[in-house]
């Protein structure tokens, strides 16, 4: 009798200890950015549990590899990241520290969402740190072109179906629903931005290339002289002249930059500084991938001047 009690007590105790590492019915997905999380949630629905490491109002270049992230990643079945060295400063340390064999490079739980994305601004020739904080494989902010949403969604769908083939049919339904909705929204966004085609803007950091490419805006120059390097007075003067000559009156920047330099430029050009969310969650209203563009386009529409069509 005593033996049984002892054994059952021991097994309950052992179970408690193992309880934390049981994987439940849903697939556990960890993404780096909130945009990947938003799209993953659309495809996975209630069948997955998604966690984004970076909040939308944080600069993904300056994230610290906090051990608390390792805990989330240790329990994850799938890691999704934007790639193109956006997360190179911190993701490798996190992958190692998470001690999770499934999410490492080459394993099934590892997804680089940049695969299949048509990349902009891939440096021709040698890339060097003397050029500032450049990304040697291209501009990594590709989520800001909503057409790339289709490619990201497809990659995530392929991976989820591979890991959880039992639910592939449901993922397909979710994917089709997402594609349909994104197609409609892109049509709306394009028609709204139609009258601004060819409009020139200045951006603080070279963040918006995919957006301006899609909606046919032109980035005249950046307030930053080189990526990650604060501008000199000389550069600001040159920029102000350029803006005045071209009658460019709008400076856009992400929420996580201070607006000191943008304000200086705007003051000399009778311009406006527009702070925009660069990721889902960049502002509280940009709560998913669709809302992100709703907000950006709404804000731009308030400030841009209509251009004559090309």
């Amino acid at each position, binding site marked *: 009798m005593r033996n049984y009690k002892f054994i059952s007590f021991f097994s309950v105790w052992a179970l408690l200890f193992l309880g*934390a*590492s049981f994987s439940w019915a849903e697939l556990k997905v960890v993404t780096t950015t909130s945009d990947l999380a938003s799209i993953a949630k659309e495809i996975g629905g209630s069948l997955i549990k998604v966690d984004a490491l970076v*909040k939308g*109002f944080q*600069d993904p270049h300056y*994230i610290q590899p906090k051990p*608390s992230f390792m805990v989330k990643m240790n329990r994850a079945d799938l890691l999704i990241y934007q790639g193109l060295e956006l997360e*190179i400063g911190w993701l490798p340390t996190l992958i190692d520290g998470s001690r999770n064999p499934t999410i490492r490079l080459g394993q099934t739980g590892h997804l680089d969402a940049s695969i299949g994305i048509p990349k902009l601004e891939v440096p021709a020739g040698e890339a060097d740190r003397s050029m500032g904080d450049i990304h040697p494989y291209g501009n990594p902010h590709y989520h800001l072109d909503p057409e790339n949403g289709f490619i990201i969604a497809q990659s995530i769908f392929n991976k989820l179906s591979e890991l959880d083939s039992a639910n592939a049919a449901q993922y397909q339904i979710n994917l089709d629903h997402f594609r349909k909705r994104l197609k409609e929204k892109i049509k709306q966004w394009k028609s709204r931005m139609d009258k601004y085609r060819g409009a020139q803007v200045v951006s603080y950091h070279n963040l918006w290339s995919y957006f301006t490419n899609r909606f046919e805006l032109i980035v005249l120059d950046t307030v930053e002289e080189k990526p990650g390097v604060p501008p000199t007075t000389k550069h600001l003067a040159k920029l102000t002249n350029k803006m005045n000559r071209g009658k460019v009156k709008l400076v856009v920047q992400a929420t996580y930059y201070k607006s000191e330099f943008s304000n200086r430029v705007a003051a000399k050009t009778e311009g406006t500084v527009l702070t925009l969310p660069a990721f889902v969650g960049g502002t509280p209203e940009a709560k998913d991938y669709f809302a992100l563009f709703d907000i950006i386009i709404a804000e731009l529409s308030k400030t841009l001047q209509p251009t004559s069509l090309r």
Partner: protein
Amino acid sequence: MKSRTLYALFMIFLFSPISAWPASQFEELEKRIQTLEQEKKENSAPSSSTATGISRRFNPAISLNGLFLGTYNSQGDYDSAKDDRTELEIQEVEVRLTAYVDHWLRGDFTLAIEGTSGIEVEEAIAEGLITQSFSFKVGKFLVPFGKHNQLHTHAYPFIDLPVVSKEILGEEGLNEVGIGMSWLLPTDWYSDFTFQVLDGDNTNQFNGPAGSDFAYLIRQNNLWELNDETTINFGASYVYGKNSLAPSNSFDNETHLAGGDLTVKWKPAGREAYKTLIWQTEFIASFREQTQEGWYTMLQHQFAKEWWVQGRYSGYTIPHGSNQEDKNQWSALLAWTPSEFSTIRLQYNRLNQATADEHQVLLQLNFTMGSHPAHKY
């Protein structure tokens, strides 16, 4: 027949969606085709490595750290045995090489060159995962005793070591050949447990006479995220080993090293690049035929994107016995950090000790080039 086919094709074209595409969509596709053709061209030249055996694709990532230092010391100008007297020197050059060995092992080497001659292998590590949540590490490495001991020279928060580390662990720190494993505990907060078997060579604390006089480390480390902005890290470490003293009736030749560390870090939400506040405190004690103990506490404040101001206090004592000692040092530092890869730091030290007090001014250029792994949090 031919004209019918042509007619059919024409009707298909007329009614096909392609004809409804706007001009810009054609241009877009044209651009994409051009990019693809270019990529294909660049990647299609065959490599010669099959025949020559010479390939660089799998070479390790390589990075270099340069630490250039100018020191002024108010004492010991003519004392050539003094390692921190007034001089201009290459404090250290570090070469770091990392690569995946194969599907289960990764290699990580650090070569340290102090001054301009003599390459030392500071770390030579092979590491990997035993299974989920269990990692292993083997080779020569900076032992995870407390927080500061794990840092390479270029990553020191100040230009020099705190007094307590220098005195108790030595200038090289606790740097041992060993094998260890680390377990990520199944808790909601980050918690790990590390156990290592070390060769026990450290001349300050170990270096027992028998080859089998290994040292043993356990460390438990926790990190709590209070909110998006603040984290608290608390760790405890203990190392046991034999030392080189001949045991007698009044004492044995065992060393017990114990350490506790507490680190609080803060960064404002949405403005992480512009401000940081770090407060770190460590207690270190060595219990053997004599007791050595001490601590340091430091505050680091990034007050602008490129500027840091820091302060540190470190104390060290041998409270009893014939070697009684009492030393402490106050340090203040200002750093200009134009990028994550370079910094110029100016530090002032005031060392209070039984022999003459020392005032030091140090100016350091500290930079990294190449593909360097990210530092631990």
